[in-house]
């Protein structure tokens, strides 16, 4: 199976690899895993407390090329977005952008989980209600 050019690009030149200070109240950390393949993904965001804009994002992923590309893309996308805008990113957006084949869809799901987990952690640290900024109301 061949990877798409975009996957190869993110894999060879991953954006935003690294670590943010986990103890800072402005930083949210999400650590998620896909046990089917043994992948682990850590995604961190730094949020401006005045504007709720995600000013920085870093990731570190141990997994296949698609998992690395999905998380690399996720950090690129969340940067500059507000919390509620970032919550609107779905795994389908990632699949489309990277042209992931069906067997790699779980990598995009993992990246979405990582964004949500990082935002969830930030909300907890800052006493923001968990459901605040939910992308779409279910009804």
């Amino acid at each position, binding site marked *: 199976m061949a990877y798409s050019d975009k996957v190869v690009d993110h894999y060879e030149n991953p954006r935003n690899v690294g670590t943010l200070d986990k103890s800072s109240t402005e930083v949210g950390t999400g*650590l*998620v*895993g*896909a*046990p*089917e*393949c*043994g992948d*682990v993904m*850590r995604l961190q965001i730094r949020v401006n407390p005045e504007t709720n804009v995600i000013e920085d994002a870093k990731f*570190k992923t*141990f997994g296949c090329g698609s998992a690395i590309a999905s998380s690399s893309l996720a950090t690129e996308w969340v940067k500059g977005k507000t919390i509620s805008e970032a*919550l609107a990113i*779905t*795994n389908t957006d990632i699949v489309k952008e990277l042209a992931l084949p069906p067997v790699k*869809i*779980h990598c995009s*799901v993992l990246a*979405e*989980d990582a964004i*949500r*987990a990082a*935002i*969830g952690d930030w909300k907890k640290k800052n006493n923001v209600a*968990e*459901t*605040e*900024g*939910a*992308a*779409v109301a*279910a009804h």
Partner: protein
Amino acid sequence: MNYFEFFSLPRKLTIDVPALEKQYYALSRKLHPDRFAAKPVAEQEAALAQSSLLNDAYRTLKDPIARTQYLLTQEGVELEEQSKSATEAARASGTEKKQIVPPELLEEVFELNMQLAEMRAAKQMGEDEPELRRDLMTAKDAFDAKMLETQAELERLWADWDAAVEAEDPGLREATKDAMVVLLNKRSYLRNLVRDVNEALGV
């Protein structure tokens, strides 16, 4: 026909493996191509198909993990689908998705992967890091022990499952099914880790 039915077994997880093996050899002889050489082509082909089903069924059922996984699929467990719908539910409610793997294990997996990456980088530079090597050895022992623990835990769950089947207890059945999924997920992480650590240590 599913693999349990093929061997006329109930859908239980504790299996008498030596008895299964005997049955396998008996059926293999019965389906051996030599016995069908003089028979019509249709019969030869049917025997061949049966014998390939026999091999798949035997290989799956004799292995404890493959057997458990197979039963879960037969019971309608679709790991990837379930993970995806959990993500969708989290998205709709704006909440965080509940991870199926315990967070402490994820932390441990992540840390160990960092150490492994360091070890590989050192190796590439032609250096050996005795301290790192020692840490990895300790981690390896811990994960080996955990693998054995999960094995014992799995066997306890088999007993629960078999009891649920016998008592026709749907509640226990579902609970055991869920517990087995969690355990197998945990195990796949451990298995990958043990493999990667062994590779990095060159053992």
